[in-house]
Every structure is written in C-alpha cells, then in structure tokens.
C-alpha cells in the first residue's frame, strides 16, 4: 500500500514537472484591426492574436509583444513553400494579464494566462527565420522514421 502511494506521488510529481502554461494573447476591447481577424478553419471572427506554450519558469509580462511572422515570396524555400520566411517584434503589446489556475491539481496546464493587448505599432526590423533543426524529437522519438528521413536526405544531397 505504501509502495502504491509512493508510486502515485512519483507520478504526480512527474506530471507536475512536465505541466506547461497556456498563454492566450488577445486584443483588448476597443482595439482596431478586428476586420479580417478570423479563425481560418471556421471563418469566425476572433480576438485571439496568438497562443503560446511555456514549460519553464518564465511567465508572460506586461510589455511583451506578440511576434509577427511573414512570408516574402522571393525568400520562399521550394521544399517548405508554406513556411514563414521572416519575423519581427509585433505591433500588439501586452497591457494587462489575467492568470487562472485549475481547481484540479492534475491538469494539462498548470496555469492559463490571458494577455490583453493594445495595438501600439512600432518600427521593428524584419529578421530572417533561422534554419530548421531536425532531430529524433522531430519524429517523436521514432528512430526508424528519423533514420529513413536522414538517409533519404543524404542520398538526395549526394546526387
């Protein structure tokens, strides 16, 4: 019985260690640029500007800005035609934050933050997206799939 309790405790501790924070950035009331801000898959209008997920000791802060991503046609990689090519510090700034913690201790997220943002445009420079990193984690730990992919890449680059 004690062993069972110990195992439960261990499981709970492990779960809590891996719990993450869900951060929703949304436009505050009365902010402009609501036209065309839609959930692409349903067409419904939305206040949501971005969703982030943190699994570390960092929390969102007042003054944070939502990063903006763009695709510039002349920089598109034909292998990844849908990807962003550049990013910049965005025009929406966090002005206040609500923090919610679940009543049930074992939840997927330890905290949900709603970050209310105001439209405060800035002249930030565009930066090119960094190269992609590919690892075993890209395949969720599937070593076979990872190896096959890397082998195929190696063969393609030799040709």
């Amino acid at each position, binding site marked *: 019985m004690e062993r069972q309790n110990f195992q439960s405790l261990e499981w709970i501790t492990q779960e809590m260690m891996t719990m993450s924070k869900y951060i929703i950035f949304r436009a505050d009331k009365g902010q402009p640029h609501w036209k065309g801000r839609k959930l692409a898959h349903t067409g419904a209008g939305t206040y949501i500007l971005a969703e*982030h*997920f943190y699994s570390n000791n960092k929390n969102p802060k007042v*003054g944070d800005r939502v*990063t903006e991503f763009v695709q510039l046609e002349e920089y598109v990689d034909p292998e990844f035609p849908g990807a962003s090519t550049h990013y910049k510090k965005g025009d929406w700034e966090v002005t206040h934050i609500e923090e919610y913690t679940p009543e049930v201790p074992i939840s997927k997220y330890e905290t949900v933050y709603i970050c209310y943002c105001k439209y405060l445009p800035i002249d930030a420079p565009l930066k090119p997206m*960094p190269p992609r990193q590919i*690892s*075993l984690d*890209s395949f969720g730990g599937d070593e076979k799939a990872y190896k096959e992919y890397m082998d195929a890449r190696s063969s393609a680059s030799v040709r």
Partner: protein
Amino acid sequence: MVQVDPKDLEDKNTEENVTRHSATSPDKCEEMEQKYGWKLNRWEENDSSILEVDCVFDGEAEFPKSRMDYTGDDDDE
C-alpha cells in the same frame, strides 16, 4: 505600478530571436516544449511532405549538451 526586474529585460532581449525545429505533427512541438522547457511561440504548416510542421520557439531552443552528443553524428545538414 509594475516593477521591471533587470534580469527580465535581459531575458526579453535574448527572446526576441526565435529557433525553428521541424516536426511531423504539431503534437511533437508541444512534446519538445515540455521535454526541454522551451517556449513554443507557434507552429505552422510548411507544406512539406514529411516534416509538415515548423515549431517556432522563443529564444535559443537548443538541446542540452548530452542530447547534442546523441545526434552528433548527423552533421550532414
């Protein structure tokens, strides 16, 4: 009145950069975020055939040293 910790400003500066990891699905992005304690800024479809998703993390989302050793042979990128 919000007090700004100078340490936070330092963090913020480094987090203005992003790191990109490819993945076969968005779930893999969340798995990486949880496994390594990274900050997942977004994931996006990249219209590629196998690694269909780009996971974009704030700051330097680099593998721990021991993890890098594990993939150290794959420097053919």
